[in-house]
C-alpha cells in the first residue's frame, strides 16, 4: 500500500511577505534619513538667523551724544534687528527678497522661524567698573548689549503628528509617538523644553559715529557749547566738571580780588575746548594772539605737534580708504 504523500507547504507568497517587511523597514529608514537631513538643514538656518540678527544689531546706531549725556538706544536696536531679521528668516530663507511660507519639505514641515532680540543688561554683562569716571556722561544703561535667539519647530508629517493621524481604535491604541515636533534654537538645544535667550553681544562703543548728525562736526573754541559738535563739547565738559577733571576752584581769583578789591580779570576755571579735524588742517585759528602765530594744532595730525610728529606723518601717509590702508584698485 502506498503512502499518501504529505502535502508540501507552499512557498508561494513568502518572498512577498519578506519584501513587505523589508520594504517597511527600508522605507522607514529612508523616510527617517530624509527627514533627519531636512531637520539638519533647518536647524542650521535657525543658528544662521540668530547670527544675522546679532550682526544686524551691530550695524545700527546704538547711541547719540547729547547735551545731557549719552542717549542709549539699545531697546530700539534690539527691536529693529528683530523686526528686520525675523520676517527675513521666517521662511528659513535668509534672502531678503525672497519671502514665502514656512517650508514644507519632503518629510518635514516647519513652523515659522521666530527671531527674538532683547536688551542684555547687567544680568548678562557685569558693568565694567571704570573707576573715577564711571557713570560720568556714560550711564549704566550705555554699558548694555543685545542678545538674539531664534525658535522654530519642525515635525515629520505635514501638520499632523501621529497621535492625531491614527484613529485610536482597534488594536492600534495609544499614541505611536508622543510628539514628533522638534524645537530648534539659535544656540544650543531646547533643554527643558525651551531655548535659552541667545548669544549676547556688547553694543555701542561710545564713539561719535553718526555721519549725518553734528557728531561729525568740529568744535571751534569761539563757539563754545554752540559749536558744531555740541555733544562732544558736553561730554568733555561733563568730565571736566567731575572729580575726574580735578576739582575746580577760584582760588587764584580769590587772591586777585582780595588784593585788588576788584573783580577778577579772568574766569579762572572756565571750560574751553577746541576740536578741528582734517578739513582745517587739525588746527584752531585764533583771532589774535600775543605771540603772533594764529594757528595751533589742537588735534594730533597737524603740524607743530612737536614730540608727536608721528601723527602728522600718519596724516600724510594714510589713504582715505578703509582703515587708512592703501586702496586696492582693480
Amino acid at each position, binding site marked *: 500500500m502506498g503512502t499518501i504523500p504529505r502535502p508540501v507547504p507552499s512557498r508561494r507568497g513568502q518572498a512577498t511577505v519578506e519584501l513587505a517587511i523589508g520594504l517597511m523597514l527600508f522605507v522607514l*529608514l529612508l523616510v527617517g534619513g530624509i527627514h533627519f537631513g531636512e531637520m539638519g538643514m533647518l536647524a542650521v538656518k535657525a543658528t544662521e538667523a540668530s547670527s544675522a540678527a546679532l550682526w544686524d544689531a551691530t550695524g545700527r546706531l546704538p547711541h547719540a551724544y547729547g547735551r545731557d549725556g549719552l542717549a542709549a538706544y539699545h531697546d530700539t536696536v534690539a527691536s529693529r534687528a528683530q523686526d528686520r531679521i525675523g520676517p527675513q528668516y521666517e521662511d528659513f530663507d535668509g534672502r531678503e527678497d525672497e519671502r514665502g511660507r514656512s517650508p514644507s519639505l519632503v518629510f518635514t514641515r516647519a513652523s515659522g522661524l521666530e527671531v527674538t532680540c532683547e536688551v542684555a543688561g547687567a544680568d548678562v*554683562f557685569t558693568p565694567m567698573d571704570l573707576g573715577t569716571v564711571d557713570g560720568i556722561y556714560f550711564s549704566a544703561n550705555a554699558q548694555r548689549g543685545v542678545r538674539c535667539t531664534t525658535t522654530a519647530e519642525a515635525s515629520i508629517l505635514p501638520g499632523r503628528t501621529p497621535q492625531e493621524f491614527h484613529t485610536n481604535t482597534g488594536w492600534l491604541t495609544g499614541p505611536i509617538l508622543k510628539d514628533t515636533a522638534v524645537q530648534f534654537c539659535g544656540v544650543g538645544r531646547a533643554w527643558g523644553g525651551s531655548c*535659552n535667550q541667545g548669544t549676547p553681544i556688547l553694543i555701542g562703543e561710545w564713539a561719535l559715529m553718526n555721519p549725518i548728525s553734528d557728531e561729525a562736526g568740529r568744535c571751534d573754541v569761539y563757539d563754545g557749547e554752540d559749536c558744531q559738535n555740541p555733544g562732544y563739547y558736553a561730554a568733555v565738559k561733563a*568730565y571736566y566738571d567731575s572729580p575726574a577733571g580735578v576739582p575746580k576752584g577760584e582760588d587764584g581769583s*580769590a587772591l586777585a580780588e582780595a588784593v585788588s578789591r576788584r573783580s577778577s*580779570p579772568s574766569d579762572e576755571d572756565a571750560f574751553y575746548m577746541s576740536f578741528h579735524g582734517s578739513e582745517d588742517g587739525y588746527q584752531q585759528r585764533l583771532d589774535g594772539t600775543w605771540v603772533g602765530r594764529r594757528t595751533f594744532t589742537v588735534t594730533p595730525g597737524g603740524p607743530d605737534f*612737536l614730540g608727536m610728529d608721528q601723527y602728522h606723518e600718519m596724516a600724510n601717509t594714510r589713504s582715505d580708504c578703509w582703515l587708512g590702508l592703501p586702496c586696492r584698485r582693480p
Partner: protein
Amino acid sequence: MRAWMRRPQRGQALVLMALTMLLVTMMVLVTLGMSMRVKEKMEVQQVADAAAYSSAVATSRVMNSMALLNRVHISNMVALSANQSLISWSGLYFGVVNQFNDAIQGKSCRRVSRYCRRVVCPQWSQIQAASRAEQARVAGLWDGLDQAAALQSNTWQKGVMEEQEELKNALIGYVFGEGGRTLTREIIDAATEGDPHAEWTPAISSSVFKGDDRGGETAFRRTTSREAGTEATHGSRGDTFVTSRADGGLGSHIKGAFGAATVSGTDSVDGEGWYGDEDASGATGYGTEYGFNPRSANARDQVSARITFMRPPCVELNTSASAPAWVFSDDRTISTNDEHQFHGSMGADSESATRRHTMGDCNSCPGIWVSFLDLDLDKVVNGDEHLFGQPKAIVAVKRDYSRRDENGDPWALRFTVDGNKSFDNRGVETTDGARINVQLAAATALSYYHRPGDDGRRWVEPPTLFNPFWRATLVSPAIDSDARPNTSRPGRLQLTLDRLGAEGTQGREVVDGLLSQGFKGWQ
C-alpha cells in the same frame, strides 16, 4: 554537486537584508550626527565672533573715555594757566605796593619852610600812612590766599593720568583677564545656559598689549603733553586772556592807594602769562619756535609804574616800579627753583610745599607737563605692521564634548563587533584613537578710529587718543602681519590657540600649515 552547494540557502536574504538595514541605519544616524556637528560648529563660531566683537567694543569704550580725559587734560591746562596768571597778576600788585612803600617810607619830609610844615609834610604823612596801611593789608591777606592758589595749581596739574590708568586696568581685568568673570566668559555662559553637554573654554589676546602676551606693557604709552600740550592748550583758548586782559582795576587801585601821590603808567598792565618763555639757557625770549619751551611755564606780568610827589624842597619822590612779577615753573633740569617772584618776595624750594608754586611734582620729567596716556607712537607709523596702533582682539573658543562621552545623543550609535571592530558615532574619537571631541573657533575684531562725515573720506585722520572716534568691527586675522607667514615669531592667532591646550595646539598647527602654503583666505 559539492556538499556545500547542497546545503539549504534559507535565511541568506535575511542576513543580507539585515546588514543592509544596519548600513542604512548607520548612514541615517551619521547624517543626523553630522548635521548637529555643523550646527554646533556654527554656534561656536557665533560665540567666538560675539566675544571678539564685544571685546573690541569694550576696548573702544575705554579708549573713547581716555580720549575725553585727554581733552579734559587740555582744558585743565587752560585753567591752570589762568590760575597762574592770576597769582602773577596779584603778585605784581603786591610788588608795586612794596616798591612804592619802600620808596615812600624811605623819604622823610623836610620841614625847611612853613609851607613844608603846614601843607606838604601833613600830606606826606598821610601818603606814608596810606602806603603802610595798604602794604600791611596786602601782606596780611597774602600768605593764606597765595598758598591756597598755589595749592590749586598743584592740584590741577595732577591731571588725568590716574583716571586713565584706572580705565586701562578695568579693561585688562574685565576683558583680557584670565579666569573669573570676564566678558568672554559672560558671553559663553549666557549663550550656553542650561547646556549639559559641553565644556567651553575661551582664550583671548589683544594687541592692546605689547609683545606677545599681557604680561608686558600695554600699547598705551605714558607720555607728556609737552609740545603737543602747548599747541593744543594754546589753541583751546588762545593767549589773550592772560596777555591782553584789561587791568581789572589793578592800575586804578594802585593810583587810589597812594592818596595824593601821582601814580602814572599803570593803565597798561602787560601779562606774558603763558607756557615757557625762557629757554634752557635762561635767556628771555620766545626761543625755539614760537617761544614755547615746553620745559617751563610761567605767568609773567609787568607794569611800568611811576609814583611822583614832587614838592621841593620838602619832598621829592620820583621813582618807578618796574620789576616784573612772575610765577615760574620749570623742569628740574633747568632749575630747582620754585619761583614766585615779585618785589619783596621770592619763593623757593626751601619753603614749605604749600608755598610752592611749581605746578605739582615733576611727574613727567623733563617738563612741567603732566602725564597722560596716548597710543604707543612707535607703533603708529607702520600701518601694515600695527595698523596705526589700532588694537586687535583675538578670541579662540574651545567646545569640548568630553562631558557627554557616556551619555551621548540617542543617535550617537556605538557598538563593538568581535571585541575589536567598533562603530562610534559619538564624535569623541576616531577608530585610531584620535580625540575629535573638541571644536575650535577663532575670531578677530579691531578697535579702529574713524571720524564720521565727509562721505567716509576721513580715514586719513590718524588714530589718536585725543578724540572719541573709536569703533569696533570684525576683521580677518590677516589684516596685519600677525597672520602672515613669519618665521621669526608666531602671530597672535597662533598664540591664542596655544592657550587652549593640546587641542588648541593642533589648531595652531593647522594655521601654521595653511600659512606655510600661502593661504590667504582668512575670514
